[in-house]
């Protein structure tokens, strides 16, 4: 493969992973206007559970059962951790004041705690479980990753557009007080969004494992798995679902093209350079819409 095609295939693959992670960021930002810094750690929770479950079951059940059970456990673990976090750390703050700095700092705190716990338990690199032996080449993997991300995006869009709960969620993100007056349970809707984001996080962990042969370190946490997709979400326009996907693919492409052409040392510069540029030219992101200033 030439440099370009390598970059393209890898870029689309990691772009799909980034897009899915960015969806998690963007959903939470859309509804509570909070940057969930701990999302990267939630992904690690999913990955950790998946790895552990797989190791427990590996010689006892066939691969398909192993994969199914591991993935479902990971999703459940993610949802539980996220809901506990939301209940204990985010909700009390949200009730108390609508200062924008405090939730962000709390999210950083949550991220630090989870990071610390994982580093206490396991700080060395873990080889990912191979759930999908039929994905042999990079192109196969790319198609698989693309399919999963597309499926998730379609399901999420259907949920937000067609179901009653989805419409309620959008109403809360438009105007929480008015939504409350219309009889929508704000806390439930927000918790639901967090749970959905947790499911996305678990699936992202799966995709990350599928993409990355060498596995992930649990100490990578926010820096590697979290910050770059977060930049993707902002580039696409944080708060918008298609924006997250567009941003994910752009950032993934830039990162892998840089790597393919031997510039991997400069990846960080390119990624955050694009972030800074987009924010300066169009602060609401490529797809996002502009919010008027309220007095």
């Amino acid at each position, binding site marked *: 493969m030439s440099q370009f095609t390598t970059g393209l295939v890898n870029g689309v693959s990691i772009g799909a992973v980034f897009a899915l992670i960015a969806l998690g960021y963007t959903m939470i930002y859309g509804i509570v*206007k909070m*940057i969930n810094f701990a999302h990267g750690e939630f992904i690690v929770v999913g990955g950790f559970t998946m790895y552990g479950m797989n190791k427990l079951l590996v010689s006892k059940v066939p691969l398909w059962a192993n994969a199914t059970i591991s993935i479902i456990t990971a999703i459940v673990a993610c949802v539980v951790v996220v809901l506990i976090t939301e209940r204990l*750390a985010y909700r*009390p*703050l949200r009730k*108390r*004041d609508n200062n*924008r*700095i*405090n939730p*962000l*700092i*709390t999210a*950083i*705190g*949550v*991220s*630090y*705690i*989870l*990071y*610390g*716990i994982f*580093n*206490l338990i396991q700080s060395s690199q873990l080889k990912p479980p191979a759930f999908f032996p039929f994905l042999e080449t990079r192109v196969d993997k790319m198609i698989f990753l693309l399919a999963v991300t597309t499926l998730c995006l379609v399901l999420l869009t259907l949920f937000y557009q067609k179901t009653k709960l989805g419409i309620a969620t959008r109403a809360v993100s438009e105007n929480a007080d008015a939504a409350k007056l219309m009889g929508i349970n704000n806390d439930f809707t927000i918790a639901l969004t967090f749970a959905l984001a947790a499911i996305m996080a678990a699936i992202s962990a799966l995709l990350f494992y599928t993409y990355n042969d060498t596995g992930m370190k649990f100490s990578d946490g926010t*820096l590697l798995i979290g*910050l770059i997709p*977060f*930049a993707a979400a*902002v580039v696409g326009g944080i708060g918008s679902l298609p924006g997250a996907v567009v941003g994910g693919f752009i950032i993934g492409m830039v990162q892998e093209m840089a790597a393919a052409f031997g510039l991997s*040392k*400069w990846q*960080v*510069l390119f990624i*955050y*350079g694009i*972030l*800074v540029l987009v*924010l*300066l030219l169009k*602060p609401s992101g490529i797809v996002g819409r502009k919010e008027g200033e309220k*007095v």
Partner: protein
Amino acid sequence: MKNKIKKTQAPKKHVSKKTQLISTIVAIVLFAVVSVLIDGSSSLMLPKVFNKICIFSIAALSLNLVCGNLGELVLGHGGFVLIGYVVSYLLTNYVIFPALQDSMAMSEIYNVIYNVHGSELHAAGYAIIIGNAIIAALITAVFGYIVGVIVLGRLKGDYLAIVTLGFGLVFVCLVQNLIPNGFTSLNSSSKLTGTPMLFAGFLVLTVFLLTMFIKSRFGRGIIAIREDAIAAESSGIPVNKYKILAFTVSAFFAGLAGGLYCHFGPQTAVQFNQDLSILLLLYIVLGGLGSFTGTLIATPLLEILNSYVLVVLPASFSNNPKIIYGILLICIMLFKNKGIMGTNEFGWDWFYTLLDKIKLFFKRVFKKRKSEVAS
């Protein structure tokens, strides 16, 4: 029968000029005694920790100016500290050393600047380090001004936080790639440990200048912007200009901290990434956003925790201070979200009111016990 003791608030005290003067003199004498004790102590750890506290306090104070007083969250402050560090490093390594190398040997230069052998610093060494730090601070201020002009007019709130995070990481990446062998050529024997007074002096100067700044017209304007940007604009404060000013001043002191940090000991560029920025944020959040006094209380507390308490714990814990930082951050946010000091500043009025409060507290406890005994 139980007496319910009425909770009385200690009245706010106004102390006379004379008391203030005496208190100030006592405080200065105390500070000097402590400094001399630290200076003369035979322990190697103590001056090092003290120096580190001074440097980090300067950096945290400069962050507090933007986060606390201006009210904009900055997540890339480590980048500015890095710029100061790099400028200071380049100056020392490529300007001062070659200039001195004509007349003396390398080991002699180290002796002059860092005085590896004795405990007294040469006057020339002082001059070099001070000049170095000030030039580093000025150049960082220029960077801060450029970033401020680009960013502050267009973005605020979360977006500003993100973009500063991006700038911080970009600086780290640039330095990593442009100075590929890191800062290794700065000899590791050049650790400056014997002279806490130099760093303490810079800290005192920083506190003084920042307090003057925040009490000036500009400082009041900056605080007005924090309270309500729109109201501030309509009362004639040039919001954007003041924001850029605050950003530049903040970058200046961050660069000063970086310039001093360079002489403290060799670091790597990665150490200035978002972890440092968030550590600084932790200091100011713990102390109270918008209170310089709070920062000056919180930084030593956390630094002492880091260098004395965590070392005692098992290795897996002491290598993972993040878990403790995280718990601290969340506890502050949930239970005392104003930090130790809120937005209060130290003043003798405040101090004596605090003393009264403590007295009242003890009296109450004592009375309670007495009434319990009586019943």
